[in-house]
């Protein structure tokens, strides 16, 4: 290890000295001087960093979501082949919580107390991760980039100083969807199909800021109750000709099946979480023998994006992720969920680089607050990280599903929670760094 690290030694310490924001310094990157590395905190050794995560690998929420950690894993593997972060390889452990909060508490306990991870990264789900929020913050374990768009992770850094959101929150998403409908479908009678928890509530709050008077019905389903017949029938009875769904992918499939049964054919708009055409298509696939054709059910539906997707093979980030998946991934194809996992791992590496040669848990949090707002990468919109906000990316684009692909109908819009306005994003797509590995400078002494 020392030999490899010495051969690729980069002038990390020198780079600490001065520079402006992100972009192209010659800092952390591919190597580091392992000889100056110390076991600076729990989960950090001279040549490794241990990270933990919880995901639903089995159960109702597993389709799609179980692929996220495989994407992250592939990214870390390729990163480790290039020398890791400052000469330390990433040791990534993810455990199954089956989307059950009781299990989440148990596996996170295990990760923190037995595996002794440096940080929890990308833990998935609002109900699940809520169960460990207090524990992680009271233990002082960095709780980075939760895989959920709830406001819980970022709106109150004073209460939860160690937790950071990552993706665009549901309220901001609702606002952007609401404004799009107000501008483009001013006469539509809008029905809402909502998961009966924070996810649906935040989305509804955002969307109502813009089109409260257009909404004719708001129907809620409880995850686990797979009979959504009454809810879809109620939307139909209310005369909604435009339905916005804040629901998970399996309920996208269920709502489509039920609508088919009822002969109900509104314009559908699924929020990002529930809209993956490949996954929904594969869920509906078997029914083709019962005269339902697969993904075409979603044809014409609208959705939102905060990351590039597999159906953009010309996007340089997608090309790079494809290379990483081919070289370091496991079985199966590159999917949007794996891209999500890789993009999240990319941000994690940015944070670790910014935390310096010998990162500490508190230093990591400080680094994200100082530098995170300037990081660029595969995400379409900038992060909102600062001392006052731990919210993730600030915006989304809107696209339409056509067959197996999507086409953009509105470029990236930025907003924030509370009364913030919506503005078009004027930045450009970030360039892909060499080997897909970011190159942030340390912002910690």
């Amino acid at each position: 290890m020392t030999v490899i690290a010495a051969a690729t030694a980069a002038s990390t310490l020198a780079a600490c000295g001065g520079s402006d924001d992100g972009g192209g310094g010659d800092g952390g990157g591919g190597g580091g001087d392992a000889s100056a590395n110390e076991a600076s905190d729990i989960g950090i050794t001279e040549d490794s960093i241990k990270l933990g995560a919880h995901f639903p690998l089995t159960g109702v929420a597993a389709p799609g979501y179980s692929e996220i950690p495989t994407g992250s894993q592939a990214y870390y593997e390729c990163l480790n082949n290039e020398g890791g972060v400052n000469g330390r390889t990433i040791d990534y452990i993810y455990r199954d919580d089956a989307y059950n909060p009781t299990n989440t508490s148990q596996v996170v306990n295990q990760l923190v107390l037995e595996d002794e991870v440096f940080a929890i990264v990308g833990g998935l789900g609002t109900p699940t991760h809520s169960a460990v929020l207090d524990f992680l913050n009271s233990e002082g374990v960095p709780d980075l980039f939760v895989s959920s768009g709830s406001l819980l992770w970022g709106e109150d850094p004073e209460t939860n100083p160690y937790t950071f959101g990552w993706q665009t929150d549901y309220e901001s998403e609702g606002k952007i969807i609401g404004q799009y409908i107000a501008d483009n479908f001013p006469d539509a009678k809008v029905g809402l199909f909502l998961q009966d928890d924070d996810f649906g509530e935040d989305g509804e709050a955002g969307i109502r800021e813009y089109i409260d008077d257009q909404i004719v019905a708001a129907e809620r389903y409880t995850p686990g109750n797979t009979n959504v017949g009454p809810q879809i029938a109620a939307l139909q009875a209310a005369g909604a000709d435009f339905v916005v769904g804040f629901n998970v992918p399996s309920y996208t499939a269920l709502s489509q099946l039920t609508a088919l049964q009822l002969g109900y054919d509104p314009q559908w708009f699924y929020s990002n979480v529930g809209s993956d055409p490949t996954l929904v298509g594969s869920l509906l696939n078997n029914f083709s023998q019962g005269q339902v054709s697969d993904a075409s059910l979603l044809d014409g539906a609208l959705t939102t994006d905060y990351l590039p997707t597999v159906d953009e093979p010309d996007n340089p980030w997608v090309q790079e992720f494809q290379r990483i998946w081919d070289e370091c991934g496991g079985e199966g194809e590159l999917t949007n969920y794996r891209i999500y996992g890789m993009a999240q791992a990319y941000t994690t590496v940015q944070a670790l680089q910014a935390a310096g040669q010998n990162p500490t848990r508190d230093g990591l949090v400080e680094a994200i607050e100082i530098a995170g707002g300037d990081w660029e990468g595969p995400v379409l919109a900038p992060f909102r990280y600062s001392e006052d906000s731990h919210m993730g990316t600030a915006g989304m684009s809107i696209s339409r599903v056509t067959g197996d692909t999507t086409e953009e109908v509105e470029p990236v819009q930025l907003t924030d929670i509370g009364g913030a306005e919506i503005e078009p994003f004027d930045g450009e797509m970030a360039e892909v760094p060499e080997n897909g590995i970011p190159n942030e400078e340390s912002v910690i002494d």
Partner: protein
Amino acid sequence: MQYFVNVTLTGLTEGMVYSAFALALVLIWRSTRIVNFAQGSMAAATTFIALALIQAGQSYWVALVVALLSGLVLGAIVERVVIRPVEGGPELNAVIVTLGLFVAIQAAIAIVFGSAFQSFPTPFGLEGFQVGDDRIALTPNSVWVIAAVLVTMALLVVLFRFTRIGLAMRASAFGQEVARLLGVRVGRMLTLGWALAAVVGSLAGLLIAGGEFVYPAYMDSLIVFGFVAAVLGGLDSPIGAIVGGLILGLALSYVSGYVERGSALVNVAALVILMVVLLVRPGGLFASSTARRA
């Protein structure tokens, strides 16, 4: 009005599915006096066998027949290997064993077939029938479900009421000693009861899965509703199981459709319905007599 019709039809179809499951519970109760908690995962196991066949290119009907046959075998094996050794001990032992079996079979399914979410095909269409200008929430597939459940119920009634073997099964369940003295081969009857119940359970599993998503635990919520339906009907009567299932299906659909945030209240409503019925008629709606114990 159309909304009311659709909520009602949704409830009827769901209710039939609960009925199918309740029928299997009633059958095993009638023939062995054991409440079988493993019924759900046994049905899930045979459903996954059917799905594997369909994915390998076989027709739905071939898969259905194979699933029913494997249900028959599975039921017989479970009775002979797992239940027989604990029979004759305290009644609770066998029940607890079925609980353990429930978990074990579910785990075995996940090992053999994986725990992915998959859609299960239907032999008939999923688009509702056209009535006038509207489509209603009754599909060719729901007609198939309803027909299959009613035919099964009729067969069970015939079996228990009009055949010697049905009589022998009931006798074995009620009083093993007496039945044995009268020349009934009690051991065989118990095995047969389990096997038949598992066949009906397999059918229920397939009917429930059609047009829905399956994964190893997909029967979990239905186990609860199936039990409620069976107890509503008196746990002893095939017709009671059907009526119990329909009442439950309709009531839950109205709760989900007409109560604010009804979807979340469905499980609570099921308990309330059960409580009310048991307070009014402790033996269930169709209890034929006060409980006779062997």
